């Protein structure tokens, strides 16, 4: 009974809102509708409507997927201090962080689905029904850790919100194991995703042991960058208290993470350029262009400039507690890491291809539209979830008030 009231209350809450809320949701729905149109076109014609080819067989979809896994993993950053060290300022916002991990994972699965040429055969991957090539295929590991992470990040926030809704003390013995589990699990989703690319000797650009640490370092910048911006929006529009202290605490962690990210990137550059084997080619293509092909060069240098400036900004934040500066840093990091971990990481894996051919890839309009749709879907899910979470947290939505 209480549970039905919880669901009913949540649905009612979703439809309550001002003009701004409604236009935001409508805006997202319109993008999703256009993307659905493009996706149906892709299903009908085949993946030929993308700009992928045998030479570059993964593109924008997998780039976005890789980036979003990092964002999802970063939720753990908020979980650690909140639960382990009882850092109170962060405690209030931890549910919003976990809901973000939830939305990000849904987006990851979305990007995988749109990349899949035969989504109709999706059941082949479900153990029992189909055949999951576990533990041989690294992709089977990814299927398991991503879905596991989705389940963990469904249970924790939904349980805590429900308990708050019915005004009962949450049972620590029930949820704390999940919280503790979620920490290594968050690390695992990004490690396993790095291990998708990392063990392929066919692709020297990815075949570096430094990959998983690099993934984690960059995720610990990009995820919190998004979280900080969204939390400020929630604070402004959602009438939800989030202290500045919490924001600056997260920013501090981001500064360390960005330092490691830049350091690891530099270590990789050094190794490739100093040894100068034929395996330098993809790095050369990325950084300076190869045989007159240089489509990614402006992108990666933008990313480098963004990441370095953001690092300087986050160092300054220790002394200058400026929210404006913080936001500039967040935007720079978000864009910088998106380029570095997305297009700047996936595409050079395929250029030059394994027989030395160069096919320059840039996404087609269909790929861009479908990707925007998955982003919009993620934002929509997060908006609706956060709306309900805030209503419950601020005491507006409670069982006794229904």
């Amino acid at each position, binding site marked *: 009974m209480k549970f039905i009231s919880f669901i009913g209350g949540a649905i009612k809450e979703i439809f309550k809102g001002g003009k701004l809320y409604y236009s935001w949701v409508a805006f997202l729905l319109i993008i999703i509708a256009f993307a659905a149109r493009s996706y149906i076109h892709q*299903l009908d014609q085949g*993946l030929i409507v993308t700009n992928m080819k045998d030479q570059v067989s993964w593109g924008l979809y997998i780039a976005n997927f890789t980036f979003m896994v990092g964002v999802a993993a970063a939720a753990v950053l908020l979980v650690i201090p909140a639960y382990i060290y009882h850092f109170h300022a962060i405690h209030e916002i931890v549910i919003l962080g976990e809901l973000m991990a939830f939305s990000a994972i849904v987006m990851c699965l979305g990007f995988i689905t749109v990349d899949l040429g035969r989504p109709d055969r999706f059941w082949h991957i479900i153990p029992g029904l189909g055949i999951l090539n576990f533990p041989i295929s690294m992709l089977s590991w990814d299927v398991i850790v991503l879905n596991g992470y989705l389940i963990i990040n469904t249970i924790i926030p939904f349980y805590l919100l429900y308990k708050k809704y019915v005004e009962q003390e949450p049972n620590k013995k029930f949820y704390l194991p999940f919280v503790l589990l979620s920490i290594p699990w968050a690390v695992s989703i990004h490690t396993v995703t790095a291990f998708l690319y990392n063990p392929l000797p066919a692709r020297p650009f990815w075949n570096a042991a430094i990959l998983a640490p690099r993934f984690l370092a960059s995720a610990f910048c990009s995820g919190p960058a998004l979280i900080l911006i969204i939390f400020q929006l929630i604070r402004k529009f959602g009438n939800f208290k989030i202290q500045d202290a919490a924001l600056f605490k997260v920013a501090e962690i981001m500064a360390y993470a960005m330092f490691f990210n830049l350091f690891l990137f530099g270590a990789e550059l050094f190794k490739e350029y100093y040894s100068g084997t034929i395996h330098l080619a993809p790095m050369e293509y990325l950084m300076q262009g190869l045989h007159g092909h240089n489509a990614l060069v402006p992108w990666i240098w933008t990313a480098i400039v963004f990441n370095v400036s953001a690092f300087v900004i986050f160092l300054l934040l220790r002394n200058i507690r400026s929210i404006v500066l913080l936001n500039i840093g967040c935007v720079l990091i978000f864009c910088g890491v998106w380029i570095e971990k997305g297009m700047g990481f996936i595409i050079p894996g395929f250029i030059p291809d394994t027989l*030395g051919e160069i096919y320059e890839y840039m996404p087609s309009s269909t790929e861009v539209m479908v990707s925007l749709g998955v982003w919009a879907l993620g934002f929509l899910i997060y908006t609706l979830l956060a709306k309900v979470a805030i209503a419950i947290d601020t005491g507006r939505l409670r069982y006794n008030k229904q």
Partner: protein
Amino acid sequence: MKEEKKVSLTKRKFLKTFMAGAAAALLPLAKAESAVRDFDMEDFLQKNFREMTPDEVKKTLKRLEEKYKKKYGKDFVVKGTPARENVSFAYGLNLSKCIGCRRCVYACVKENNLSRAPHQIHYIRVMRFKKGQGIDFENSEHYYEAAKVPEPGYFYVPVQCQQCEKAPCVKACPVKATWTEKDGIVVVDYNWCIACRYCMAACPYMGRKFNWAEPQIPLEELNTNTHYLGNRPRMKNVVEKCTFCIQRSREGKYPACVEICPVGARKFGNLLDPESEIRQIIETKRVFRLKEDLNTHPRFFYFFHS
């Protein structure tokens, strides 16, 4: 009176535009509907080829023959010939002899029903290298056009699936849609592939090709003598690859590329037969394999012998 007419005209115009707009928006729905109509339940529920009982295999092959008959109006044979005992295939390519004529490429296209349009699939890629530079892929020419081959100053290296014993593609597949057969051929179950394309990322030889759209083949050029794991017609969005012409080699014939080669650069046979040509080559020539440092153990040997 006049005013009223004007109003109704604009109204009609508005309605017309609105309807046209709505129809345009619904256009993809019509596509979706046709997809639902084309949906084949038996295809959808089909098991992985390796998990089928012999009876199920028989039924599936028959069903496919009927399906292709309906689709192409031709009588197809879809075989499921299993690997023979004591057969382990291997391939030899004599680089001293290859003249880069690409006859193998096109014989393969025809034999294996490879897509001609809108995307072209070739299992074999012949690359041209400058003499004296070694096999340096990055500086090779993939799309050379020569009025006459061989051209002075160049040599040629054809590459296709190397049928690795330790195949990285097989390891990569998350659903076991691709595997190594007992006779060493790496095959794909086109009906089981989910098109994640992880195998393509894993292959060091560009051995795997993707059907980016519905493959198109001129009706008169269709090869109707097919094998389930080989050259039967493929569908859009699945991975495929060279199978040493499984439909031929399992019946004791040479692959199409071996048969067509005008200079006899291509050799093929059973490694377990001490009298076979391929065994002689491996025992008497200095053979090498591509990218040996990757430890993939190809069954495809290159050698020099004039």
